[in-house]
């Protein structure tokens, strides 16, 4: 039974695309057949993060308009044979997306894949609403700061009212993914705590991804962070999150700052 999962946030720059690539790659490594769909028409990035930018020929809009068929537009990942990408158009704007077009493509993808992961654009306009429209489950990506949390709250409200599931009286299953969690700043009380975020959003936690240079390093070489260095802290957190998506029970760890020996000797705080 295919699952449509939307990765969304409301706010920009919180890590939707990074999370889409990391979760998609991990699920594919676990043997699931996965397609990641870029809904950010005009500002696509998912192809870069997956290192597929030089292989894009046809895109989502071409398929919607019947210029190409779906199999021509799907790009298979070079490292993982179970992972596919449906890129967005970079030259169009979001008005080129239509509800019928998205509906048709999602229905076709459902017959071919186990997971359809939709990378939503920021905002609450057409692109974002269409990305969540047909979702069965949602990952809400939030940074532990007030503006991001409030935007996520707005998005959760839309997931509960604007999706096909909501209109049929069902619920989109929601998961909260806290990203860019800075252990040092959390220790100093400069960020919202996980408890604060959970209390405001009242949504089950899928994972906590620590802020890390590894994320930037991976995207620079066009690789999901979980593939680039599977033992890095963010990669391990994403792998745990993907296992929870598959229904496994994995204990949740709140990342803590690790102080080096020199820091301890000198009484310095980890920066």
């Amino acid at each position, binding site marked *: 039974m295919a699952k449509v999962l939307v990765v969304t946030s409301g706010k920009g720059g919180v890590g939707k695309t990074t999370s889409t690539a990391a979760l998609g790659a991990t699920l594919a490594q676990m043997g699931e057949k996965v397609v990641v769909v870029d809904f950010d028409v005009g500002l696509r990035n998912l192809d870069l993060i997956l290192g597929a930018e030089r292989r894009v020929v046809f895109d989502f809009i071409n398929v919607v308009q019947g210029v190409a068929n779906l199999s021509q537009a799907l790009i298979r990942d070079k490292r993982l044979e179970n992972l596919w990408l449906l890129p967005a158009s970079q030259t169009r704007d979001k008005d080129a997306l239509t509800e019928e077009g998205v509906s048709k493509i999602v229905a076709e993808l459902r017959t071919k894949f186990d997971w359809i992961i939709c990378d939503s654009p920021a905002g*609450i306009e057409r692109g974002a609403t269409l990305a969540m429209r047909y979702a069965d489950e949602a990952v809400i990506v939030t940074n532990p700061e*007030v503006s991001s949390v*409030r*935007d996520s*709250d*707005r998005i*959760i*409200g*839309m997931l*509960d009212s604007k999706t096909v599931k909501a209109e049929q009286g069902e619920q989109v299953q929601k998961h909260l993914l806290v990203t860019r969690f800075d252990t040092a700043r959390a220790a100093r009380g400069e960020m919202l705590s996980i408890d604060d975020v959970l*209390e*405001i959003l*009242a949504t089950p936690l899928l994972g906590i991804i620590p802020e890390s240079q590894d994320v930037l390093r991976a995207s620079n070489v066009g690789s999901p962070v979980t593939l680039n260095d599977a033992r890095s802290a963010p990669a391990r957190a994403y792998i745990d999150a993907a296992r929870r998506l598959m229904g496994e029970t994995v204990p949740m760890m709140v990342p803590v700052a690790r102080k080096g020996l020199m820091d301890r000797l000198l009484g310095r705080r980890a920066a």
Partner: protein
Amino acid sequence: MDAMARPKRKPVRMRGRSYVAFVFCPAVPILGWLEEIDTTLRQSPGFFVGKPVVLDLSAVDLSCNAIAQLIASLEQRNIRILGIEGVDAARLDPSMPPLLTGGRNCMLSSSEPKKRESRSKPSSLLLDGQVRSGQSIVFPEGDVTVVGSVSSGAEIVAGGSIHIYGTLRGRAMAGINGNPAARIYCQKIEAELLAIDGYYRTAEEIDARLCDRPTQVWLEGDIVHITPLN
């Protein structure tokens, strides 16, 4: 000097009033039509008693005599004719009911009292769960109860009081239809705006010491009071 004042003429006061009348449209053969009337009367004998009845003769072509007979046979059945329409005035004689014009059709409504409808309208609204940022709950009919929190950027607008069994982080406006007795209750207060009957307080004016405890907001004169509940 003439001490006699002429008695003033009192004008006759007249008022208009309208009634709903049954309109009978006799059809040929008249005898057959009368039998139908009889059938109706047998089923509910008092059906036409005390009701104004008008005879519409436009469907039949009756002489003056025939009209008189028809009226007589209706009178035998205790149906009295208030007026006649749809016939040339020349065919009526002065003893008959007057000719009417300008009638308008209307729906005959059953006279049963409608009690149910007014009762079914709810005077309170219960929301089971969070009210999220950007959502606006407007309920001018009465009280709103939220089993959950109201997020920052959400708003509750109620004609009556507002009860929140979670944290109020958004805006709450109670008594919007001019009800100064409305109040706002919440488990925890971090509100952006509180208003009762148009008088409001912004977040800056809420005492920080009130956070994290059950709170009541009420109006006295034109002052919004925010007090702990215990």
